[in-house]
């Protein structure tokens, strides 16, 4: 049954009321197609931006993971070539010898050049030789 045929089933007063109601114009003051189109564009742009951010973040993560793994030796190498056992160094000998540089320095600072030990042997011979050359 068509819509017109159904409308014919209404009584005259009801049809009249329906056409009177059609003369009323509904209010739609603040609805603007331009702002709707703008909003749609903004949302679409935001979606694209979000997608790019996620893609670049995922790519960065992959790169970081690859770099991290490539900078370490593989496990197989470690098992084939075990690291030598760690050795704990013994505590250094704190007793300074008579000829230690530290002792000599302290002595020179206290008593001047005269504190230096007397040299014998080859050094003197060499000096004499040089003097002789001059």
């Amino acid at each position: 049954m068509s819509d017109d045929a159904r409308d014919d089933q209404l009584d005259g007063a009801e049809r009249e009321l329906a056409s009177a109601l059609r003369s009323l114009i509904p209010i739609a003051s603040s609805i603007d197609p331009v702002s709707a189109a703008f909003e749609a564009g903004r949302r679409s742009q935001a979606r694209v931006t979000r997608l790019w951010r996620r893609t670049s973040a995922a790519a960065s993560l992959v790169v970081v993971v690859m770099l991290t793994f490539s900078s370490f030796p593989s496990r197989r190498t470690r098992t084939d070539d075990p690291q030598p056992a760690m050795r704990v160094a013994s505590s250094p000998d704190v007793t300074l010898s008579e000829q230690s540089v530290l002792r000599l320095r302290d002595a020179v600072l206290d008593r001047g050049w005269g504190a230096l030990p007397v040299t014998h042997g080859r050094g003197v011979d060499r000096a004499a030789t040089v003097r002789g050359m001059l």
Partner: protein
Amino acid sequence: MSAHDPTDPVELFRSLAPALALYARQWTPSHAEDVVHDVFVRLIEITQSGKRLPEDPRAWLFRSVRNAAISTLRSGARRKRREGAISDASPRWFEPNVDDLIDAAAAQRAMESLPDEQREIVVLRVWASLGFQEIADVVGVSVSTAFERYSKALAAMKLKLEAGHVRRRA
């Protein structure tokens, strides 16, 4: 896209926005225009993304507005319960016009007195000019039920308007 393409969202917007806003107002008077705006944004997004438009964009728009308005009504009811009841003054539904064949305020009062399921069918038939098959699809009832509700609504409104008219004359 031509200026008179019936599936052009902007054309649809211009021709249907007032009826859609009136339809949304049946559930959510204060957010009706926001609801219509959001539905149009979705329609434009569908067009821009290259997806196929709904087969009957008019029916799709009314169905979407209905769903969004009911959803807004529910969330609004929850918010009101949380914040305490706020008076929701019913705004005017129609533009005042000297050429109107019926008093706009009286018609609105008569409409407001109808049950929801009858009132929405009057809006869809009278202001959206949807056929009964389309109305049945939007509302989710049979065609005969849609017509029955429409007929009952008009009869009830006629009585209400006549009673108001008699009271005013008395």
